[in-house]
């Protein structure tokens, strides 16, 4: 705007003010009328509509379909149009541009014209924005009632309606090559929760099939749904499915029916719907019975796909007769008949010679003679089916991609061995937990339940592994925290833990749905606490309330807080949602009463010996982490020599300055981390220190 225009404007405005009205009372009167109307509107709305209040927030019920305030609906809707990697455009770029345009409006429109007809760009753009925002908001409101007509009588569609339609409306378009099952079960993108805690593996598979092949769902509805329940078929095997489709009326189970079965593209769509093209699941259904968890293959991905498609003599087994001697052959043969009764060296032989092809799956032989025959002669002892005839193209793609990746050893496979080496000692082979071998007073709760894994995201699991849980006796495992594992390794373990989630090896008793009106603390204890802590408080999944150590290490306030808020790291839920504060106070008193007789530990008298006094303590409390296999911090508690002499920060016991030994520092927490992280009874600490100060003799 030129300065002459500015001058003109100011002059004109002065004129307009002169011919105008005084603010008081004229303009203010109009303002007052509008304010009154607004006030009345607010009161009327409060009286007749009121302010909505839903159920109390429940973090474990993620089936709730989130709905933002009306003025954010357009943004919420916009998000749906930017899937996957484009998401940040819809979420970040567009809103930022809009806000920047608003701020800069006076400089974007620099003409001296003010009447709306003289500013066509501003007019068009504003109308466009208004129409856009209103349209998006309306869209969001209209889509919200899920497509109920889909749901009637169609179990898979109702799964979709209940769980997905709230955000995704009628249908999702998925880019090719998307691992849909992984996204559904673990939650793929902003705002999408992991569903694996709420849905079974079959349900997730059914949903993936529904999304990937909506046509298949329609075919199923018209051709199969009268007799079959979709999820039942989905779990069955692809061979029978293919037979049924190919044989038509000749298929045994269909013989008495006059059926018109789908063919061609319809049949393909149907198979894709029933068994979603998901590599992992297809491998489990079709391949793992012969190949275990992975197949060895040294060609390209395309070659592998071809091998799978054509099937047949894909890779002959070498004749082992020339490589192994007779005892080895017979050991292996008996191993494949019954691993339990086979000679002890058989497992090693299998690992050395067979597992490269057979994975960790031992082929089952009917009798010794047949097994010996196959091992000695080798050859194509069992043909691979021609998968090209059984699977659809989409399924083949997915399967080949998965199998190829698993050759490399997927993170989960790597995680399995890392877990076995680092975690299973305390957490059990299946994450079932149990008594902490390093401290019998602590009982580790299962970490492989759907509940545990479903309520912790990857960041949390990584943090737990990296930093440990000093309060529960878990030392840090991340390199940055002084542990043995790098970031990638921790990630692999998390991936392995996640593999439990779809099919948890451990199930907890179902949680209490609603709080009955319970009175006394003993009733509450019997009803809730005893499930995990034992009827007499003797412990189980949760720690024992009879142990003195439990009571000595906690104040009443800490007990109250634990009950009220639960423990993030264990199966202990926040009972504050269920119990009143008074009930918890009574419960704390009740738990205190469960305590057994106080310890009468005799004070340390006389000479403390290494073999008699020190070694048993070290073995019970230190050896789990500080052993010759994986000496964390470079210190091993396995022998007198290593106790005295090992340690990354110099020998644990300084013979020249016994009282200044690193071991004492760690036991007392005076320098470095307090050890052991799970705590050590004071009498044992006294014992160890007395032994060191007496010269740390090997007596």
């Amino acid at each position, binding site marked *: 705007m030129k300065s002459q225009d500015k001058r003109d404007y100011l002059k004109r405005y002065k004129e307009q003010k002169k011919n105008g009205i005084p603010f008081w009372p004229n303009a203010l009167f109009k303002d007052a009328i509008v304010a009154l109307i607004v006030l009345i509107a607010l009161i009327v709305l409060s009286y007749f509509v009121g302010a909505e209040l839903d159920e109390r927030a429940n973090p474990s019920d993620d089936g709730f379909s989130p709905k933002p305030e009306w003025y954010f609906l357009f943004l919420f809707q916009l998000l749906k149009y930017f899937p996957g990697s484009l998401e940040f455009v819809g979420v970040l770029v567009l809103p930022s541009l809009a806000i920047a345009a608003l701020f800069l409006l*006076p400089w974007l429109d620099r003409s001296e014209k003010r009447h709306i007809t003289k500013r066509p760009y501003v007019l068009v753009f504003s109308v466009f924005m208004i129409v856009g925002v209103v349209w998006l908001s309306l869209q969001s409101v209209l889509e919200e009632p899920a497509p109920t007509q889909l749901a009637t009588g169609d179990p898979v569609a109702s799964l979709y309606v209940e769980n997905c339609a709230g955000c995704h409306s009628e249908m999702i378009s998925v880019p090719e090559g998307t691992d849909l099952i992984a996204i559904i079960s673990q939650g793929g993108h902003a*705002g999408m929760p992991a569903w694996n805690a709420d849905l079974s593996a079959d349900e997730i598979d059914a949903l993936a099939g529904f999304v990937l092949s909506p046509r298949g769902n329609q075919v199923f509805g018209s051709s199969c749904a009268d007799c079959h329940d979709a999820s039942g078929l989905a779990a069955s095997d692809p061979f029978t499915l293919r037979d049924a489709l190919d044989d038509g009326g000749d298929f045994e189970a269909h013989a008495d029916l006059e059926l018109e079965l789908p063919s061609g593209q319809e049949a393909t769509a149907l198979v894709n719907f029933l068994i979603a093209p998901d590599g992992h699941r297809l491998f489990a259904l079709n391949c793992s019975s012969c190949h275990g968890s992975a197949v060895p293959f040294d060609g390209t991905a395309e070659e592998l796909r071809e091998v799978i498609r054509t099937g047949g003599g894909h890779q002959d087994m070498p004749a082992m007769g020339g490589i192994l001697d007779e005892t080895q052959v017979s050991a292996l043969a008996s191993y494949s008949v019954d691993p339990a009764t086979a000679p002890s060296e058989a497992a090693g032989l299998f690992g050395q010679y067979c597992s490269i092809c057979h994975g960790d799956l031992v082929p089952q032989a009917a009798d010794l003679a047949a097994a010996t025959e196959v091992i000695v002669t080798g050859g194509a002892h069992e043909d691979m089916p021609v998968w090209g005839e059984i699977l659809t193209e989409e399924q083949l793609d997915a399967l080949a991609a998965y199998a190829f990746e698993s050759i490399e050893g997927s993170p989960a496979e790597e995680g399995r061995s890392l877990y076995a080496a680092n975690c299973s000692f305390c957490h059990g082979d299946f994450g079932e937990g149990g008594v902490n071998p390093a401290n019998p007073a602590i009982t580790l709760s299962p970490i492989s339940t759907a509940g545990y894994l479903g309520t912790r995201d990857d960041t949390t699991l990584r943090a737990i592994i990296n930093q440990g849980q000093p309060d529960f006796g878990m030392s840090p495992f991340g390199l940055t925290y002084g542990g043995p594992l790098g970031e990638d390794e921790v990630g692999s373990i998390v991936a392995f833990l996640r593999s439990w989630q779809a099919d948890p090896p451990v199930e907890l008793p179902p949680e209490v749905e609603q709080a009955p009106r319970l009175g006394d603390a003993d009733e509450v204890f019997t009803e809730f606490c005893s499930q995990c802590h034992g009827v007499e408080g003797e412990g189980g999944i949760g720690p024992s309330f009879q142990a003195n150590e439990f009571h000595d290490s906690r104040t009443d306030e800490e007990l109250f807080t634990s009950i009220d808020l639960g423990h993030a790291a264990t199966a202990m839920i926040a009972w504050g949602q269920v119990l009143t504060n008074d009930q918890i106070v009574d419960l704390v008193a009740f738990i205190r009463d469960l305590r057994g007789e106080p310890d009468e530990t005799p004070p340390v008298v006389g000479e403390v010996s290494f073999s008699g006094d020190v070694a048993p303590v070290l073995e019970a409390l230190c050896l789990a982490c500080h052993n010759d296999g994986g000496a964390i911090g470079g210190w091993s508690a396995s022998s007198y020599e290593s106790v005295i002499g090992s340690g990354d920060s110099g020998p644990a016991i300084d013979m020249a300055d016994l009282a200044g030994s690193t071991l004492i520092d760690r036991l007392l927490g005076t320098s470095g981390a307090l050890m052991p992280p799970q705590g050590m009874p004071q009498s044992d600490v006294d014992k160890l220190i007395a032994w060191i100060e007496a010269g740390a003799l090997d007596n």
Partner: protein
Amino acid sequence: MSIDDRTDEVLDETLDAEWMDQRTGWRGVWNGIFLRMIPKVNWSFTLGSATLFVVVNQFITGILLTIYYVPSPQDAYDTVLYITNELPAGWLIRGMHHWGATAMVALAILHMLRVIYYGAYKFPREVTWISGVMLLLITFGFGFTGYLLPWDQKAYWATTVGTKILEVTPVVGESLLRIARGGDQLSAVTLSRFFGIHVWVLPAVLLSILGIHLYLVIRIGISAPAKREE
């Protein structure tokens, strides 16, 4: 102009004024704000003052709500229930705060559209416009933080999704998410920081910028509807 610099006439004038005006100079302020002349305008020019009225409503009802509301996951829902069902006129206070929020957003947007329509963001009102856009963003901030406070299902999950959106920001997304939530998941920390932002931070920012906005409106004068040839 300090008192010492005044000319004798001005000093006489001051001494002629009534007791209170001598000491506060309120009449000058009153004249400047209420007796100023403004151009002839239509009803759409009441939208700004209507928004201001709702802001006052939000402050009054909001302060009353904080007397009973407790921002912790255990108590939030119960205190909101108590306010709604048991506190005398509690339903009215909460209802007016709830609907006031909607009205504030709606009126602020309409007010902005009016300003766009009449080209009122142009010289000499550019700074007024910028402060106005800031006020609109603050209003959205109020809406987002206030939505969580009742700690009911829709509040919890809408905020879960709303904060999760931050995660898509390249590079710093994860940190932003953790800052917004005060951890990996929504927790007592999230609730207390949303509460703090809603009742302390945003009102303070709102008042400062609103002060600038109103000062500029009074100083420059409200725009007049543009004529066809302008």
